[in-house]
C-alpha cells in the first residue's frame, strides 16, 4: 500500500477556552490544505474523527459540521468513532479510500474540545468508552482501570513504580521542547513519584491532561505527490487495525500485547520493513504504563522489558528507536478524537525533518504510529516512509 501525504496541520494542544470545536477543526483543516496546496473543493471525501462532542459540547453530526465550515461541501463527509483510537481510524479510512482507487484526494481530520466541562464531567464522558453501566458501575474510571493494568504489569514482571516513572521523565523532557504540547516542563523520577495520586499506582505525571485540539492530513494518490518533487515525499505504507476486549476484568496482559502485536506484524509485512528498521515511533500513552506495553507490542523490546528503554536511553532521541519525541500524550494531552491524527502528523514532521528543535530524530526515514482505545478495545498501526 502507498498513500501520499500531501499536507499536514495541527492546532496547538492546550486548553483553549476562546475556541469552539468547529474553530479548532477549521484551523487544523485549513493548515493542512495550505500545506498541501489544495482548496476545499479539491477534497473529495472528509473523515472526521471525534469521540465525544455529544457529551463535551452538546453537539452531534461533527463530520457534517466540519464539512460545512471547512467548505468541502458537496463532498461526502462522515464522523468516525472508535474510542481513543478514533483519529487513527479516520486515517485508516482515508488510506483505504485512496488505496481503493475511488478517490484522488481526501482529508482526515481529528478534533476534540474537552475543556468546556469540568474534569469530573469529562471523566464520566470518557468512561463511556468502556462499559460504564456494567463494569465501571464498580466505580472504575479510565485512569483507575489502567491503574489495574499497571499493577498487573508490576506484579508479573517484578517492576517498581520508580522503574515506570522513567517513562514520564523521558516524555516530559521532549514535551518541554515541543511548542505545541499542552504540558511543557521537565521532571525527575522523584518529582513523578511525589506527584499527586490519581489512581494508585498511577500518579499525576503519569496521566495525560484533557486537551482541546485538532489535527488534519490531506492524503492523495502517490502519483500526485510524486509529480510534485519539491514537496516532501512522505507516504503512508501500512495501515492495520484490530479490536480487543471491551472490559478491564477480561483484559489480561496478553490481550494488551496482542492488541498491538497482531496489527503491527501485519503492518510490517505490508510495508516490507521490520521493527529494527523503525527510526521514530509515536506510541499511545495517555497513561505512562501504556508506553512500555506499546514498545513490547511493536517488537522493540521483549515482554516485560518495555520500560527499560526510558531508563537506559534506548528509546530516547538518539537511542535504538526514538519513542515519543513529541512528548507523547502525557505532554501533548489527549484530545480523544484528534490524538490518532496528531500522532500521524508528528511522525510525518519527523520524516520531513521539521520536528521542533531538540526533538528531531536525525535522518528519520521510517516511522510508525500506534494508537489504542477502550479498556483494550482498539489497536491501530500506521507506518510512514520517506523517499529521496
Amino acid at each position: 500500500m502507498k498513500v501520499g501525504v500531501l499536507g499536514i496541520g495541527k492546532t496547538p494542544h492546550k486548553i483553549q477556552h476562546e475556541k469552539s470545536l468547529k474553530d479548532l477543526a477549521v484551523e487544523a483543516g485549513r493548515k493542512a490544505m495550505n500545506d498541501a496546496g489544495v482548496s476545499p473543493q479539491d477534497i473529495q471525501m472528509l473523515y472526521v474523527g471525534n469521540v465525544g462532542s455529544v457529551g463535551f459540547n452538546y453537539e452531534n453530526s461533527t463530520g457534517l459540521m466540519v464539512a460545512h465550515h471547512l467548505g468541502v461541501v458537496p463532498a461526502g463527509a462522515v464522523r468516525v468513532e472508535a474510542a481513543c483510537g478514533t483519529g487513527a481510524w479516520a486515517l485508516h479510512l482515508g488510506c483505504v479510500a485512496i488505496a481503493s482507487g475511488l478517490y484522488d484526494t481526501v482529508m482526515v481530520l481529528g478534533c476534540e474540545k474537552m475543556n468546556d466541562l469540568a474534569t469530573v464531567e469529562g471523566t464520566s464522558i470518557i468512561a463511556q468508552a468502556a462499559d460504564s453501566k456494567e463494569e465501571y458501575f464498580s466505580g472504575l474510571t479510565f485512569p483507575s482501570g489502567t491503574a489495574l493494568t499497571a499493577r498487573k504489569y508490576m506484579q508479573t514482571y517484578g517492576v517498581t513504580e520508580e522503574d515506570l516513572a522513567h517513562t514520564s521523565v523521558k516524555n516530559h523532557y521532549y514535551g518541554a521542547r515541543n511548542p505545541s504540547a499542552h504540558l511543557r516542563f521537565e521532571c525527575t523520577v522523584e518529582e513523578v513519584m511525589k506527584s499527586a495520586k490519581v489512581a494508585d499506582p498511577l500518579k499525576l505525571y503519569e496521566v495525560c491532561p484533557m486537551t482541546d485540539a485538532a489535527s488534519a492530513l490531506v492524503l492523495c494518490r502517490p502519483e500526485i505527490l510524486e509529480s510534485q518533487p519539491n514537496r516532501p515525499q512522505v507516504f503512508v505504507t501500512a495501515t492495520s487495525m484490530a479490536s480487543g476486549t471491551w472490559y478491564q476484568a477480561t483484559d489480561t496482559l496478553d490481550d494488551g500485547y496482542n492488541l498491538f502485536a497482531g496489527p503491527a506484524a501485519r503492518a510490517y509485512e505490508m510495508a516490507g520493513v521490520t521493527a529494527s528498521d523503525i527510526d521514530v515511533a509515536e506510541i499511545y500513552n495517555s497513561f505512562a504504563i501504556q508506553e512500555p506495553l506499546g514498545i513490547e507490542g511493536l517488537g522493540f523490546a521483549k515482554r516485560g522489558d518495555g520500560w527499560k528503554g526510558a531508563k537506559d536511553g534506548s528509546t530516547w532521541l538518539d537511542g535504538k528507536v526514538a519513542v515519543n519525541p513529541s512528548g507523547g500524550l502525557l505532554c501533548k494531552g489527549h484530545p480523544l478524537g484528534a490524538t490518532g491524527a496528531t500522532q500521524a502528523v508528528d511522525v510525518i514532521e519527523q520524516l520531513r525533518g521539521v520536528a521542533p528543535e531538540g526533538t528531531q530524530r536525525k535522518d528519520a526515514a521510517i516511522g510508525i504510529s500506534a494508537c489504542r482505545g477502550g479498556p483494550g478495545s482498539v489497536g491501530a498501526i500506521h507506518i510512514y516512509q520517506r523517499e529521496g
Partner: protein
Amino acid sequence: MTVSAIEFSRLGPPKLHLFAMKCETCQALSPWWERSHCYKCGGDTLTESELAGTGEITNYTVVYYPPREYVGQEPYVVGHIMMDEGVTLPAPVMGVDPDAVEVGTRVAATLRRMKLGHEGDIYYSYKFVVDDDPAPRKKAPAATRSAVRKPAARKAATPTP
C-alpha cells in the same frame, strides 16, 4: 455513568445478587455481562451460575478522581476479586485503608448503597469487605437465588457507601 430508573430495572439484578455466566461449550465462568458470547472460546450459549460471594483480592486500585456520581466517596478502593468459583469481578472494597490494601486478602460480598442516581434514586450493589472467615467455599448446587452472603461480624446492608 447515567442510568435511568427504567434502565436500571434491566441492569440492576446482576448488582443485587452475585452470579457469573457459565459457557456451555468450555464451562469457563465469565463476569455477568458476558451474556451473549464467551470471550474465552467463542461459545454462544451461556447460563447464569450463582456465586457464594467470597474470594480474594488479586489486583486493586485506589480512585482519587471519581466519576460524577461517586464524588464524595473518594479515595475508594476498587479491586479485582477472584471469586472462589474462578471468575474475576471488579468491585469496591470497603473498610480497608487505601494505603494498606494487600493482594491476597480474603473478602466477602455485602449489599451496600452504591451511589445516587441523577433522578435522586439510590442504587444498591454488592461491594466487598474483608472476610472474617477466611476458608474458601463454593456455592452449594441447591442454593437459593438470594445469593449475597452477609459477613456475620458486620452490620448488614447498612446504606452507607
